[in-house]
C-alpha cells in the first residue's frame, strides 16, 4: 500500500485516451496489472474516475461513490480498456471450459464490453432465430402454417438475458461477500457475460427442426457453459468450502439453457 505521486494509474485520469497510440497504452495497463494499484473491482467508479494524489485509493475498499462518478461517462472508460484481440481471446477461452485459464485472462483488466455486447447479440439471435425455429417446427407438423413474427420474443429475450446477466452475478457477489470470500463484482459480470457466448452459435444450430438434434445441442451447450462457470467460480472460492455455491451457479446456468430451448424453440 504505497501512496505517492509516482504510482498513479493513468488510465483513471479523465481525458486519457488509451486507444490512440498503441504503445502508450501498455505502460498504463502494466500499472493496472500490479494488483495493489488496480481498483477496477470497485464498482461504480468513485470520484468521477479521478483520484487526487493524496488519497489512499486502496485504503478503504468501498470508496465513497459520489454521484459524479456514477453519472459521468468517462469514469466507466477503464472497464472498456480492451482491444479486439483481447476480446476474441476471451471469447475463445470461454468456449473451451476445461482449460480454466479464463480467470487469469480477466484478472488484471476485466472488461464490460464483452458482457454487454454478447448479451445484446444473444437477445437479437434468440428473438430472430427463435421465430424461425418455431415456424419451421410448426411447418413440419402442420404443412400450411403462415409465418408469424411474434414481437413478444424480443421482449422476453431482452428481459431474460439482460436480467440473468445483470442480477445473477450481483447475487453471487453478495453471497460470497457474506460468506467471507473475496469477490469482485466486475469480474463476476465479466465471467457470466462471456459464459453466455456459447449460446449464440447454438441458437443458430437450434433452428434445425429436428427435436432430437435440438435436445442434443442444448444439452451440450448448457453443460459446457455450466462447467465453465463452475470451474472459474471455484477458483474465486479457493480456500473455503463453497462447493454449494458453485453447484448452484452451474444449475442456474443449465436452467437458463433449458429455458432457452423450451421458450424460444418450442
Amino acid at each position, binding site marked *: 500500500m504505497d501512496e505517492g505521486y509516482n504510482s498513479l494509474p493513468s488510465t483513471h485520469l479523465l481525458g486519457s*485516451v488509451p*486507444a490512440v497510440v498503441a504503445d502508450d497504452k501498455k505502460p498504463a495497463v502494466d500499472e493496472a496489472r500490479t494488483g495493489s494499484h488496480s481498483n477496477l473491482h470497485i464498482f461504480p467508479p468513485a470520484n468521477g474516475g479521478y483520484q487526487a494524489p493524496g488519497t489512499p485509493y486502496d485504503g478503504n475498499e468501498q470508496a465513497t461513490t459520489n454521484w459524479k462518478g456514477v453519472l459521468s461517462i468517462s469514469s466507466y472508460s477503464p472497464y472498456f480498456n480492451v482491444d*479486439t484481440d483481447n476480446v476474441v481471446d476471451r471469447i475463445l477461452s470461454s468456449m473451451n471450459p476445461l482449460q480454466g485459464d479464463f480467470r487469469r485472462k480477466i484478472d488484471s483488466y476485466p472488461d464490460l464490453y464483452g458482457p454487454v455486447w454478447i448479451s445484446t447479440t444473444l437477445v*437479437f439471435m434468440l428473438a430472430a432465430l427463435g421465430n424461425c425455429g418455431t415456424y419451421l417446427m410448426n411447418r413440419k407438423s402442420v404443412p400450411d402454417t403462415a409465418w408469424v413474427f411474434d*414481437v413478444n420474443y424480443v421482449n422476453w429475450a431482452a428481459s431474460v438475458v439482460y436480467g440473468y446477466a445483470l442480477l445473477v452475478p450481483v447475487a453471487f457477489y453478495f453471497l460470497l461477500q457474506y460468506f467471507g470470500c473475496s469477490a469482485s463484482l466486475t469480474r463476476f459480470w465479466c465471467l457470466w457475460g462471456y459464459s453466455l457466448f456459447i449460446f449464440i452459435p447454438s441458437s443458430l444450430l437450434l433452428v434445425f427442426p429436428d427435436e432430437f438434434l435440438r435436445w442434443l445441442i442444448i444439452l451440450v451447450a448448457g453443460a459446457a457453459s455450466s462447467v465453465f462457470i463452475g470451474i472459474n467460480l471455484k477458483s474465486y472460492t479457493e480456500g473455503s468450502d463453497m462447493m454449494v455455491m458453485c453447484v448452484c451457479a452451474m444449475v442456474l446456468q443449465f436452467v437458463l439453457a433449458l429455458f432457452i430451448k423450451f421458450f424460444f424453440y418450442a
Partner: protein
Amino acid sequence: MSLHPNPLHSSAQSDIDEIENLMYAAPVLPARPPSPPRASIPVSSTPFVPSNLPPPSYTKPAPPAPPPVAPVLPPISSGGASGDPRPAISVDGFGSPPNTLTEPVWDTVKRDLSRIVSNLKLVVFPNPSREDPGKALRDWDLWGPFFFIVFLGLILSWSASVKKSEVFAVAFAVLAAGAVILTLNVVLLGGHIIFFQSLSLLGYCLFPLDVGALICMLKDNVILKIIVVSITLAWSSWAAYPFMSAAVGPNRKALALYPVFLMYISVGFLIIAID
C-alpha cells in the same frame, strides 16, 4: 425551429472567425432597402456588408467539438437555402441576433430541408470528401435522423398485420436507443467522437434501409425482400463505416464497428420478418 448562435454567448474567437469569413469569403453587395414584410435590421446601420451567405443557424455542443468545425459557415447549404437574392438576414457579431423568428415558415422549412438533403448526399452517396469524417457531417442536424427513424417505424407498422403499435414501438426504441448506445460505445472505447454528430450520422445512414423497407412493403415476395434488404444493409454499413472506424484507434476498430452492423442487421431482419 433551428438554433442560431447568440453572439453574446459565443466565444470571442468564433466571433472573430465569423466576421473574417463574412468579410473575405462573401461577395460584396450593394446595400438594399429592407423589404416590407420582414422586420429586418436596416442595412445601413450595421458595420458589415450583408452577404448572400445564410447565417450559421446551428449550434455545436461546447467543448468536445474540434476547433475547425465550429466557426465554419456551411459551404454546402448556401446555394439552396435562401433562394431569394435579398440579403434578408444579416449576421453581425455585435448585437441583434439573426431574424429567423420572423421569417416566413416556408423559408425555415426550406432551409432545413435543404440541409437534410445536403447531409444525405454527403453521408450516403459516394462523394470525394467521404473519407474525411471531420468534413463529412459538419453541419449535422437531428431533423433528418428523426424523419428517417419515424418513417421506418411507420413502414414497419403498416406492413405488420398484427400488433402494429408494438412493432412501431420496438422499431423506434431499437433505433433511437441503439444510436445513443453505439455512440456511448465509441466514447467508452476511448474514441474521439462528437455525440450529436454521431447520432446524426447513424440516423442518416438509415436512409437506404428506409428505401428497402418501402420496396419490401410494396412487393411482398420473400426472396425479393431478402435480396433488397441485403443490398440496402450493405449500403448502410458502407455509409457508416468510414466515420466509425476513424473514431477509434486501429486496434479497436472491429469493437466499434461490430455493434453498428448488429443494429443494422437486426433492423434488416425486422424488415424481412414483418409480414
